[in-house]
Every structure is written in structure tokens, then in C-alpha cells.
């Protein structure tokens, strides 16, 4: 099997001895939301998650819920996001983060095709358990979408083995039991799950949920191959701080990670 663009990129970062930084931006949040994606790229992200808003985002905390609601109220749909992205030609790989009913309603293959046509390499669907997702995984594989899977602190070892086998792109290690959002300190569970997940797979393992500062990102990367930062980015967008603030934020994380993990060369 040939590796997708997302996994290829994240593996290359790992091979170079550095860490991956993957911010999350809510798709369609503001007319100029692509400027936020561009800012993330300028700030030094290795890949970017694009949130496709859903009415009932059960994995997300208050900040991303609010961003979801704002985007939905302005009429954003999976199609408008895909349309906006066409022609954007992102220099870094993108992954869509949404909920399963969006894919189910559209049809698995059509949804996968929509992502591919929009230049999106991977997909994250947190509310479909691995055991129930055979149909989606088949469609994703066929159309060429990297299906990202979760490793939770409560996952037993045999489940982590299966996750490691089936995950494409990266394994999303959930840093703590809870919803997305910034926390005052990094949970011990983040390091533990990253380390356990890595023991079960060769696919890059990124920690997300609960990372709210560059220091916490560095701490998580003691084990993980990289981090996902969502609410800390989206909070700035919801507050109307604009693309410059996002670029500066990402650059701060980039600098902290590069200082702690400067690479092999």
C-alpha cells in the first residue's frame, strides 16, 4: 500500500528528528477563513485540520462548539468548504475533522470524493467506533482518504494494536478523558497514551485534546511524534483576533518544538 500525503509528511518530520505541529481551523468560520489556514501554514504547521461544522459536536468543548454554531449560522456546508478549498493548493497536507452523520448522509464514497476533490488528504470522524466503521474505511481506502483513528487513555492494549494496524495518516492519541479545550497543565494521561500507542504502531502518533501552551506541546512530544492544537487557535478566531494573531501563535509553538527537538542534522 502506498502511503498518503499526510502520513508521508508526518513520517518525514519524525525521521528528521523533529516534531509535527497540526493546528485545527474551523472551516467556514468567517468569510476569510482561508486566511486563517494560510496563517497556520506561515506560522510553520506541518499539516492542518479543517473542521467541517456539525450540529452536535460531542467531542468538542465550548470554544469549538461556538465556532461550529457561528459557521453553521452563516450557512456553511461541507460543499461550501470544499468549494472554498478548491484552488487553494495548500503546501501542507490537510485533514477534515467532522462527525460521522455528515459522511453517512452524503454517502461514504461521495464524502471521500468530496474531500479528495477539495485537496484534503485525511479524515477524522470521532463518533464512529472502529468496530462499526468497516464500510467507511473501505470507501476511504478506495477513494484514497487517509482515515485517522483514535487511541484513548481507556483503550486496552489489544484495541491499540488494531488501531495501529488500521490507522492511516496518524494515530490521534487523546490526551485526556474529556472534550477538546485548553487545560492549565498537561494531563499525565497524555504522555502515557502517546507512549502506549507508539508501542503498538509505526504510524506517527500525535497527541490532541487538552494542549494549551507551547510548554505542554513540548512535554507531550517527549513521547509523541507531534501535537494537535485546536481550541487555543479557534479561541483567537472566535474572539476576532485575526490571521496575524494565529500566525504568531503557531510560530511560538513551532519555535518551542524546534528548540526542544532541533532534528538530526
Amino acid at each position, binding site marked *: 500500500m502506498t502511503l498518503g500525503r499526510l502520513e508521508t509528511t508526518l513520517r518525514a518530520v519524525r525521521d528528521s528528528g523533529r516534531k509535527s505541529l497540526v493546528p485545527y481551523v474551523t472551516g467556514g468560520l468567517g468569510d476569510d477563513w482561508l486566511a486563517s489556514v494560510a496563517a497556520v501554514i506561515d506560522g510553520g504547521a506541518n499539516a492542518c485540520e479543517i473542521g467541517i461544522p*456539525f*450540529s*452536535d*459536536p*460531542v*467531542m468538542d*468543548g*465550548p470554544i469549538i*462548539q461556538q465556532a461550529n*454554531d457561528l459557521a*453553521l449560522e452563516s450557512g456553511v*456546508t*461541507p*460543499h461550501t468548504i470544499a468549494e472554498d478549498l478548491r484552488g487553494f493548493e495548500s503546501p501542507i497536507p490537510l485533514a477534515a475533522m467532522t*462527525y*460521522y*452523520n*455528515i*459522511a*453517512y*448522509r*452524503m454517502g461514504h464514497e461521495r464524502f471521500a470524493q468530496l474531500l479528495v476533490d477539495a485537496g484534503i488528504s485525511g479524515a477524522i470522524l470521532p*463518533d*464512529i467506533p472502529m468496530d462499526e466503521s468497516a464500510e467507511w474505511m473501505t470507501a476511504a481506502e478506495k477513494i484514497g482518504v487517509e482515515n485517522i483513528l483514535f487511541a484513548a487513555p*481507556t483503550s486496552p492494549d489489544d484495541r491499540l494494536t488494531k488501531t495501529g494496524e488500521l490507522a492511516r495518516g496518524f494515530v490521534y492519541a487523546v490526551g*485526556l*478523558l*474529556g*472534550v477538546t479545550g485548553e487545560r492549565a497543565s498537561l494531563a499525565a494521561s497524555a504522555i502515557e497514551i502517546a507512549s502506549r500507542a507508539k508501542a503498538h504502531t509505526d504510524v506517527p502518533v500525535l497527541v490532541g485534546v487538552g494542549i494549551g501552551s507551547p510548554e505542554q506541546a513540548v512535554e507531550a512530544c517527549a513521547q509523541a511524534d507531534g501535537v494537535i492544537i485546536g481550541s487555543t487557535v479557534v479561541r483567537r478566531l472566535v474572539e476576532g483576533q485575526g490571521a496575524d494573531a494565529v500566525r504568531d501563535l503557531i510560530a511560538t509553538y513551532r519555535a518551542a518544538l524546534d528548540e526542544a527537538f532541533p532534528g538530526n542534522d
Partner: protein
Amino acid sequence: MQLEQAFTEAWADASFRAELDGLLKDYAGRPSPLTDCPRLSEEFGFTVVLKREDLNHTGSHKINNVLGQALLAKRMGKTRLVAETGAGQHGVATATAAALLGMECLVYMGEVDMKRQELNVFRMKLLGAEVTPALSGSRTLKDAVNEAMRDWVATVEESHYCLGSVMGPHPYPYMVREFHRVIGSEAREQMLERHGRDPDVVTACVGGGSNAAGIFSGFVDTDAELIGIEPAGGAAVGNGVPGVVHGMLSYLKQDEHGQVLEAESISAGLDYPGVGPEHSHLAAIGRARYESVTDAEVIDAFQILPRTEGIIPALECAHALAWMSRERASLAGKIVLMNLSGRGDKDVTQMMDILEL
């Protein structure tokens, strides 16, 4: 998965069943009576028989499921119950079971529902539960479910999510139906004893569908027609298409892109855009039928039972009464068993504003 295994073991364990049966009898007041309604029957032109779940402790069928889940949670070593509630009946029942078994209790309730059901909010607090408003989305039942799920994910080691209907991820739809099976089993026996036969029609209101699932379970293997009544503004089986939310695949009120739509019903307990998967299945195979009634029909029907039988029904149950009232002609001469799943005390403040008697 931990829950599925725990339930399977407990349900097969005679001592667990005996403990639950004991609580249902001596604490909740089961069996609930079967009540014939001569004056209502005369007005409607067919025989109406009510299964009186409104007479259970806490005023609705919800206590059956909650006692089962609370005992199970305790058996699993959990110390805290998390629940969602719409009208507040499930929240009150959960708070009650938590108090009874010495557990912590946190109930999520849509901000809109907290206003229209403030009596139940007070009852929950009195019972020692914490009530937290769900401030997202439509601020009703669906959003309370979202908040309860978010809480559960974060506190799963000490918390049990005491889900209030036959919905959500496996094993909830099955487990909650099993805990409510007692409604149908009792009613079947009581019908045979009293009327010497099964009813022609069994009807109940459907939001998520737990009271309907309970009473239907006693009659699926009879010739009785099973009819669930949904609110017109939240008719998942009626207007929905299959969708996945809250961990279940079922009929769902949603837009063309898969965004879940807000249900709109006068009754907070039925204000849910989805429905339990078993009801979707019963509809798909043609074993049960689902009809809907409007808020206006419900308001009219709400007043019939107090006047004819001296029983104030919950607004949820008034949906089934509204359907019976509309179908007088087609039901003529039949025996109709209706699950009166809750009493209307909680709704009188809301109805006072509407009816201006």
C-alpha cells in the same frame, strides 16, 4: 463495552433481579394498576384502558429504568450518576435513585426546558442533585444529551451515564427496553385477567421512545396493532431519514447535509429529533406504526382526561390521547390500551398560561 458486559451479567444474576424487583415493588409501587375508563370510552366510542405508569413513585415510568441502571452502576463500582433530562421526569427519577443509593447525581437540562419545567428543577435540587443548564444548540433535550455525553467521557472512571430512553450507543437501547419490559408484561397479564383478551390497539407517545418500547414489548407477539405517537414538530419516524447521532443509527430529523434539526414540541419530554433504533426497526418491518399530532391537538386532548376520568395526564401522554381523539371513527368498537406514562402535575404551570381557565 464494559457496560454491556456488566449488564449482561447482572441481568442473568438472580440476586440482582431480586434486588431490583424488591425496589420496584416496595419503593416504586409496582405493579402499576390498569384502569378502565368508562366515561372517556363513552365519549370516544371505543374502550379505553390505561396502564397507570403515572402512579409510580416520582410520577412516571422513568423510575423503572433508573432503578435498574443505578443498581447496575453501583454494582460496577461507580459513585456518580450523570443524566440528561427533557421534561425533568428522568432527571427527577435519577436524582431519586441517587439519593436512595447514596450516589452523587448531576443532571443536564436544556436552558429552555429549565424555564418551562422549573418545578422539576426544584425537585431535583431538593433530592440533592446538581442541575446544569445545557447552553448549546437548541438548548433542549438533544443538547442535554450532548452535555451528558461530554461529561461521561471525562468522568467515566467514577460515573455512570444513566441514559433516560431507548436510544444512544449499545447497550442502552436494549438495556433500557429490558428495564421497561415490566410495563408490557404486567399490562398483558392485567388485560387477560380483566378483559380476558389482548387489546386491539396498544398506543403510547414517542420521543426517544422508552415508555412505548416498554409497553410494546408485552404485545409484539400478539395481534394487537402497535401505534407510537410523535409530536408533529419532532416526528423522527414520520419525517426523518436514517442518520447517526448520539451513538445510534435511527430515523432522525436532519437537513440535506446531515445537520440535526431542532425538534419543536410543546412537550419538553418529546422535544427530541431522533428516536430509539428499535422503533425505527419496528416501523421498517411494519410491526408498529407511527403517527403524529400537532401541539393544538395536544392542548385540546390534555383537558379530556381530567374532565372525564379525574386524571391529569403528562403533556407527553396527551399526544396519545390526541391521536385517539382524532381517530374516534376508525377505532370505534375496539379495545385500546394506552400507556399513561406520566402524570401532569409538572405541566400545570405551563398549561395555566396556555389555557387561561
